[in-house]
């Protein structure tokens, strides 16, 4: 019975995804919400504002700098968590 339930669940989710897929805008469409407001702004001004030609890096390190600082902290916290869980040696 579990297998049947699992199969039905998978089919249901698959059908949902297929249904939602029709709303995805065409690849590279310039008129989607993601490409019109702040995204276009970044592409247009990041070169003269930051003197780096990689827009991804400019967004990562400058426009979304606080977010990236948080990501670094997350990695550091993950390291501490692994140390707390796995260490058996006592002091460093």
């Amino acid at each position: 019975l579990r297998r049947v339930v699992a199969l039905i669940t998978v089919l249901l989710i698959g059908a949902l995804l297929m249904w939602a897929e029709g709303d995805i805008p065409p690849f590279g469409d310039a008129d989607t919400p993601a490409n019109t407001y702040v995204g276009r702004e970044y592409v247009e001004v990041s070169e003269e504002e930051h003197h780096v030609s990689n827009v991804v890096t400019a967004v990562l390190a400058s426009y979304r700098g606080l977010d990236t600082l948080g990501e670094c902290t997350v990695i550091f916290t993950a390291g501490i968590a692994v140390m707390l869980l796995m260490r058996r040696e006592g002091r460093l």
Partner: protein
Amino acid sequence: VTTDVVTRTVSRAAVPFVQLFGLYVIAHGGSSAGGGFQGGVILATSLILLIIAFDLQYLKRLATERTLIVVSAASILTYAGIGLVSLLFGANYLDYGAVPLPLPVPEVRGLMIEVIEAAIGFNVTAVMTWIVADMLTKDEENT
């Protein structure tokens, strides 16, 4: 040291190239694909390759766990420190274009982006190596 001599020799020869490529990816993040996270993982790969090919003690001669933790904490502090320095010069937190270097503002920002990328890279390297080292520490005690 438990692995084959071929494994050890090839890894030893490959590690400098992997590290050079990792540093290249970190340093080139501003102008092409790449950046701190990717380059940091490549750098960490070279150290993990050393752990696999030799053993944990070999890595610990190069960098103890304490060193790795200090490196990763120091890089986060560098990043946060850049934010605090820009507060000092009257801008918003992490608005590092305000730091008065003898350069035009966009170039100051570009420079700071490179510093931040390097900090991210060393942080990722240290933490990845540190996680693998910690996971192996337990194993080595049981055997």
